[in-house]
C-alpha cells in the first residue's frame, strides 16, 4: 500500500461509517458493552488478588502457648524467639491482656464481652518479622520449640485458606468473564458481518473493476479499527472511573478489607481495554470482508 493512499482509505472509511450510521452505532455499542464486561471482570479479579496478596504481606506470626505451660518455659521461649535472625521484635501477650483486647473488640456487645473469663483465652507471643517471606521458616523454628501446628498463626496459613476459599470464586469469575467476552466478540463479529453483507454488491463491483483484495479491505479494516476504538474509549474510561469510585467507597466503608488503589494499574487497564477493542474491530472486519472478496 502506498502511503499517499492512506488519506483515501481513511476518507473512504469515514464516509462508509456516515452512510451506514445505524450499523456503525450498533457495532460501537456492542464493542462498548463487551469492553465494559471485560473491564469489570479484570477489576474484580485484580481486587480479589490484591486482598490475598495484602494479607500475605502481613509480617506478624502469633504462637499460642498451651494451657499447662509454666512461666519459666514461657520466658525461655520468649528469649529464644528474640534471638531468631528473621525476627524484628516480639511481644508476650498474657491471658489477661488477651482478655482485655477481646473486651475492647467487643466493647459494644457486652453480652459477648462479659461471657468470657480469662481462663479461656490462651497466652501468646506475637512476632513481627523483617520479611513476610520468612514466615514459614519461623514457623518451622516454633515447631522445633514444641508448638503444635494449630498453635501457630502465620500469614501463609491465612493466604492458603483465603486462596482455598477465593480460588473457586476467582475461577468462576474468570470463566464468566471469558464466556461473556466470547459471546460479545461473536456479537461484534456478527454486527460487522451484517454491515459488510449489506455492501457485498459494492465489494463485487470493486473487484470487477480490478481492485486488489487489500485495496477493498483496507477501508473496511480501518472502519473496524475506528469503531472498536470509539466503543472501547468510553467503556474503558468508565471502568477506570468506577474502579476509583469503588476503591474510595471501600476504604471508607470496609476499612478492615485491605482494598487498595494499588491493586489495579489504571493506565495499563485502560490501554489493555483500548487494545482489545481495536483488535476485535480490526479482526472482525478483516475476517468478514474476506468472505466476500472471493469474486
Amino acid at each position, binding site marked *: 500500500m502506498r502511503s499517499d493512499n492512506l488519506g483515501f482509505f481513511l476518507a473512504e472509511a469515514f464516509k462508509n461509517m456516515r*452512510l451506514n450510521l445505524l450499523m456503525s452505532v450498533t457495532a460501537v455499542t456492542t464493542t462498548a458493552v463487551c469492553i465494559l464486561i471485560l473491564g469489570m471482570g479484570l477489576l474484580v479479579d485484580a481486587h480479589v488478588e490484591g486482598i490475598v496478596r495484602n494479607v500475605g504481606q502481613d509480617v506478624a506470626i502469633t504462637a499460642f502457648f498451651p494451657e499447662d505451660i509454666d512461666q519459666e518455659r514461657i520466658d525461655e521461649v520468649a528469649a529464644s524467639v528474640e534471638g531468631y535472625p528473621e525476627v524484628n521484635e516480639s511481644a508476650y501477650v498474657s491471658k489477661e491482656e488477651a482478655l482485655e483486647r477481646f473486651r475492647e473488640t467487643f466493647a459494644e456487645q457486652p453480652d459477648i464481652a462479659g461471657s468470657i473469663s480469662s481462663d479461656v483465652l490462651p497466652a501468646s507471643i506475637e512476632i513481627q518479622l523483617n520479611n513476610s517471606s520468612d514466615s514459614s521458616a519461623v514457623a518451622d523454628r516454633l515447631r522445633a520449640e514444641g508448638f503444635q501446628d494449630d498453635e501457630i498463626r502465620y500469614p501463609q496459613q491465612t493466604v492458603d485458606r483465603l486462596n482455598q476459599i477465593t480460588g473457586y470464586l476467582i475461577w468462576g469469575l474468570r470463566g464468566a468473564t471469558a464466556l461473556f467476552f466470547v459471546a460479545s466478540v461473536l456479537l461484534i463479529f456478527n454486527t460487522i458481518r451484517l454491515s459488510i453483507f449489506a455492501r457485498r454488491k459494492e465489494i463485487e463491483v470493486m473487484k470487477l*473493476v480490478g481492485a486488489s483484495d487489500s485495496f477493498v479491505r483496507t477501508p473496511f479494516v480501518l472502519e473496524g479499527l475506528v469503531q472498536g476504538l470509539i466503543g472501547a474509549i468510553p467503556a474503558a474510561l468508565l471502568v477506570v472511573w468506577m474502579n476509583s469510585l469503588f476503591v474510595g467507597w471501600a476504604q471508607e466503608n470496609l476499612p478492615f478489607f485491605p482494598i487498595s488503589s494499588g491493586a489495579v494499574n489504571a493506565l495499563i487497564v485502560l490501554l489493555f481495554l483500548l487494545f482489545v477493542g481495536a483488535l476485535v474491530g480490526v479482526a472482525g472486519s478483516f475476517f468478514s470482508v474476506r468472505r466476500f472478496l472471493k469474486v
Partner: protein
Amino acid sequence: MIYFDNVTKVYGKDAVALENVNLGVEAGEFVFLVGASGSGKSTMMRLILKELEPTSGIISVNGVKLSAIPRRYVPKHRREIGCVFQDFKLLPNKTAAENVAYAMEVTGQKRRAIRTRVPQILELVGLRDKLEAYPGQLSGGEQQRVSIARAFVSQPPILIADEPTGNLDPDTSVGIMQLLHRINRIGTTVLVATHDKEMVDVMRKRVVALEAGRIVRDRVRGVYADEV
C-alpha cells in the same frame, strides 16, 4: 486478443453452460455475441474476467493463459479489461466522477492524473454536467455512460459489455452503441453480448451466435439472425 480453445463450462453437476466453444477475437475487432437468455453469453464474459474457471479447455486473453494467472494477479488482469454490465454496477455511494475515479484509484494512479482525466472522460461520454450526481439521480442511459466511462478511463486494450442496452430504451441504446463504436475505432477490442436485434442489424459487425452453449454461427458482417 481473446481466444477460447475448446472451452466447456458446467455449473454444478450437469448444468452445461458452454460446450466445446472455440472462438478467436483479434485485436481491434468489434464482435457481437448474440443468443437467447441462458445461451451462455454471460458465462463467456465472466470466464474472460476470470470470475469463473472453465470446466475444461483453455482461455487466453491478451496473450496470457487465464489458468496460469495466480489469484493475487487477477486484479491486474481485470485492469486490462474494461467491463460494462446490464445493471451498470455503479457504486451507489459515489458520484459519477468518484465512480470513474475509483477505477483509476485501484490501479494506484496519481491523484493529479485522476483529477484531470475523470472530467475529460465524462465529457467524452456526454456527462460534463453530471460529475457530482449520484447514480440514483441519473437516468439509466446516463448511468450506463458513467459505467462505460469507468470501463474506459484507463484505456484498456479490451472492453467487454454484457447486455449494455438491456435496460435502456431504443433511442438511448443507439447512443450507447455509438459510444462503444467510437471506443472501438481508436483501437480497443470490443466484445458485446446482446440480444438487441435492431442494434446488431444496424451496426453490421462480426456476429457470433450462441445457442444452448454452442457457437452456431460466426459471420464477419452479420445480422442478428440469418434470413430464413
